[in-house]
């Protein structure tokens, strides 16, 4: 059988399981959702979406049971909808499921085509959307329905003050940085003519012309782009702090004023190029910092948009929808299938199932009996159920986690960056040396101009260009090398932290193991008829066990005849029941069979799926979460380089120990809640360890935010990806090993570069102070030192991993 692509989502599947159409044999669909969206787009003339998509793939559309009526409630209006001065309504949404630019195009297009929508703009970088519309023409629920109809989902979020501030700061820095880069590039081009002329001879009037143009660019860069340094320096002085801004702005201003005196007739050499370079280099670094802050704010908005808006409480048999803050302890809350529990409580019904993957990371639904605890943020995966609130919203698990994440994002622990610290002391020393040199020469020779020129030489020769470049150039090469190997470092500084790491904490599900159940054994072979019945039964369920059985049957390459069962029924927390030609078919756990009077004598430590026809057990499948193939190699590597490995999982002790033993992890922590994992991070850090956390689920997000470096698998939950500092795009554990190798090697080169630039300064600064270096040579040797650093960094990629 051949592998074909789904015409809508472009994911590849075996041809035998695809939905085909008689009218159009060239199309294949992996599910009804994809088929529905494809036809909707075709009918609306939006087929160009597939051309725009290129080679990207989509997640198949998921049918959501969330009601859209909430979007038209008054409480929703008050919280999320704002009115524009023109009288239109405005809402900010986070759109879920955006994978490529074509997704953005499609959503914008479908909204633009909706009557009453004035403006719909979606930001591809952070998936946030701003929609302005006329409520009298179209209600918001209809707009949300439009988005859902094409396979995406939308959640509202409150645009925070931090978001507004971070967005405007990002724009401001981007503009200033762009102008600085523009100025530097022009000055560099003119510089070629100037320096070539100085060696081969240049007419004084031409040199003057060049100085004039240079001064024009330097003025713009210094006073527009560099304005933030002057502002920072001013506030620093006001608070009696010598900060980097003071040194940068002070150094650049002295050089600028000196160069102006040259321009207006004094003898000597101008340094407008140094002025623009200093400002540009430091500003690029600052811009990256601002970007980091902005992405932290975006992450928080995404997390907040996942919090349910309202809850249904039942009072004397009357249902009422209330805001989460209004829920009090003792309220009876009703949760429908697919809805999230809004506050913590205890179940008052006898049987229900909850998807607790947001807490434990385990994908199998958890059974809840009367009196069992229900945690906020977990999803009801069974039928409608009711529970009693034992905590209000502010004290519930979900709210606690959101608050903790917010705090840790605002103060994400960072190891002090060595280079920054070094530059700070270096700059103070140089300024002091320059001042000493100036007064020394002034009193020694009595010549103001000579003293000034020598002082400028000291400043220029010591201009921390090589020092400033030592880290970014090596990091840039390291990061590009990592990207080639499918590793995304979100910020360069994590290379340094990574290289110093002493402990790695790994999550079990999805990191060490595949996170998907696979069939380990089957008690008895099935004949073709039984096979068809079993396939039809598991095909009707989205439960992870059913999915695993379905995949097993397909992988076994069995010729399955597709039949349609009658009366398919989901038995809550137990399995499925159906009939076919008057036969009763059962598939599920032990309880399902026992309750139907079927005796089973099989005991197993694994997840078990029984299949029975007409009261007779036909076959039993044992399922397990298989271990990723590179796990052992990765753990062995950590041991070799002396990094301690710890496994922390929400799963039970038996399974955790078993997996730990198989892959060679000695320290295993089991039954860990997200808060426990975060606590573990804190205690490890208190012991002075530098911790790398590897995880992929929502339950790992808090621990990831507490770690010194957080690594997430590319297929992980959105929140985990947002929290991480490094993303392993190909999900392979080799990626984690590669990250270690690359960061350790890059860090080695950073140290070499710093050493080289310091050696250069130790030799040249005394010469400059002694007056042996004219400013021109100082400027040239400064460039040479930068070249050495760049050349050395190029060697990073020479090693094979």
């Amino acid at each position, binding site marked *: 059988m051949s592998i074909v692509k789904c015409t809508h989502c472009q994911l590849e599947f075996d041809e035998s399981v695809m939905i085909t159409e008689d009218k159009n044999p060239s199309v294949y669909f992996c599910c009804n959702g994809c088929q529905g969206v494809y036809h909707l787009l075709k009918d609306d003339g939006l087929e160009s979406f597939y051309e725009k998509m290129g080679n990207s793939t989509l997640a198949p559309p998921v049918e959501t049971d969330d009601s859209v009526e909430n979007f038209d409630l008054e409480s929703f209006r008050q919280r999320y909808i704002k009115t524009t001065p023109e009288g239109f309504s405005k809402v900010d949404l986070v759109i879920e499921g955006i994978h490529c630019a074509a997704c953005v195009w499609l959503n914008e297009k479908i909204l633009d085509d909706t009557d009453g929508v004035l403006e719909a703009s979606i930001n591809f970088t952070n998936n946030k959307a701003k929609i302005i519309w006329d409520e009298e023409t179209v209600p918001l629920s209809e707009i949300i329905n439009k988005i859902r109809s094409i396979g995406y989902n939308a959640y509202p979020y409150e645009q925070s003050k931090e978001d507004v501030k971070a967005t405007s700061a990002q724009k401001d820095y981007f503009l200033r940085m762009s102008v600085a880069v523009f100025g530097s590039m022009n000055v560099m081009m003119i510089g070629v003519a100037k320096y070539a002329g100085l060696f081969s001879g240049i007419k004084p009037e031409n040199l003057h*012309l060049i100085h004039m143009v240079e001064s024009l660019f330097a003025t713009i860069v210094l006073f527009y782009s560099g304005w933030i340094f002057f502002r920072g320096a001013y506030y620093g002085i006001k608070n009696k702090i010598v900060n980097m801004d003071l040194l940068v702005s002070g150094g650049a201003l002295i050089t600028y004023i000196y160069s102006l005196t040259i321009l207006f007739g004094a003898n000597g050499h101008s340094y407008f190029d140094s002025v623009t370079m200093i400002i540009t280099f430091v500003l690029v670094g600052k811009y990256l910092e601002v970007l980091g802050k902005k992405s932290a704010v975006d992450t928080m908005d995404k997390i907040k948009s996942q919090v349910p808006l309202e809850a249904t409480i039942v009072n004397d048999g009357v249902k009422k929808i209330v805001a989460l803050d209004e829920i009090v302890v003792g309220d009876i809350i009703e949760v429908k299938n697919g809805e999230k529990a809004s506050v913590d409580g205890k179940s008052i019904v006898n049987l229900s199932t909850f998807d607790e993957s947001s807490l434990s990371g385990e994908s199998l639904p958890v059974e809840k009996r009367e009196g069992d605890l229900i945690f906020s943020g977990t999803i009801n995966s069974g039928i409608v159920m009711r529970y009693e609130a034992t905590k209000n919203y502010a004290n519930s698990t979900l709210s606690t986690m959101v608050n903790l994440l917010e705090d840790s994002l605002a103060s994400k622990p960072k190891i002090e960056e060595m280079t920054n610290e070094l530059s700070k002391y270096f700059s103070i020393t140089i300024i002091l040396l320059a001042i000493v040199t100036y007064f020394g020469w002034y009193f020694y020779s009595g010549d103001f101009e000579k003293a000034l020129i020598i002082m400028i030489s000291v400043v220029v020769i010591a201009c921390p260009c090589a020092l400033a470049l030592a880290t970014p150039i090596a990091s840039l090469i390291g990061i590009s090398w990592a990207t080639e190997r499918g590793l995304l470092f979100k910020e360069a500084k994590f290379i340094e932290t990574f290289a110093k790491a002493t402990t790695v904490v790994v999550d079990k599900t999805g990191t060490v193991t595949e996170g998907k159940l696979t069939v380990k054994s089957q008690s008895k072979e099935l004949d073709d008829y039984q096979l068809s019945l079993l396939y039809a039964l598991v095909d009707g369920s989205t439960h992870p066990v059913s999915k695993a059985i379905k995949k097993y049957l397909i992988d076994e390459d069995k010729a399955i005849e597709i039949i349609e069962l009658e009366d398919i029924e989901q038995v809550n927390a137990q399995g499925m029941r159906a009939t076919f030609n008057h036969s009763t078919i059962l598939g599920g756990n032990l309880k399902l069979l026992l309750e139907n009077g079927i005796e089973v004598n099989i005991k197993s430590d694994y997840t078990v799926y029984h299949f029975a026809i007409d009261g007779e057990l036909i076959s039993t499948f044992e399922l397990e979460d298989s271990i990723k193939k590179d796990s052992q190699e990765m753990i062995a590597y950590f041991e070799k380089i002396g990094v301690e490995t710890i496994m922390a999982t929400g799963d039970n002790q038996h399974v955790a120990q078993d997996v730990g033993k198989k892959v060679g992890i000695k320290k295993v922590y089991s039954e860990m809640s997200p808060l426990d994992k975060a606590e573990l991070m804190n205690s490890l850090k208190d012991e002075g360890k530098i911790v790398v956390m590897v995880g992929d689920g929502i339950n790992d997000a808090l621990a990831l935010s507490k770690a010194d470096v957080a690594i997430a698998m590319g297929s992980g939950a959105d929140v985990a990806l947002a929290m991480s500092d490094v993303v392993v795009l190909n999900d392979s554990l080799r990626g984690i090993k590669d990250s270690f190798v690359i960061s350790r090697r890059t860090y080695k080169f950073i140290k070499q570069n710093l050493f080289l630039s310091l050696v250069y300064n130790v030799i040249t600064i005394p010469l400059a102070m002694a007056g042996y270096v004219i400013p021109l040579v100082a400027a040239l040797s400064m460039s040479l030192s930068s070249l050495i650093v760049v050349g050395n960094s190029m060697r990073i990629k020479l090693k094979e991993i």
Partner: protein
Amino acid sequence: MNAVLKLELIVGLFVSFTLLAIFIWSVRKGGFDDSKKMMDGMLFDSEEDLRDAVRRENKQKALKEKKRLEMENSSKE
């Protein structure tokens, strides 16, 4: 020679500052707010997309006009 150099510089500066001004205008208008979308800009550049843009503009104009009239009527009442 000097005059040629001066002319070249003036033209060069004029062109580069004009481009810078266009760039600044574009940043202020939000053209660079979404770095990813900007990179994929070519995908949204077909004739059909241009027609869409015109249609969108006309629709916005009509909606704004309708809203203005509604607000005027309600304030009169």
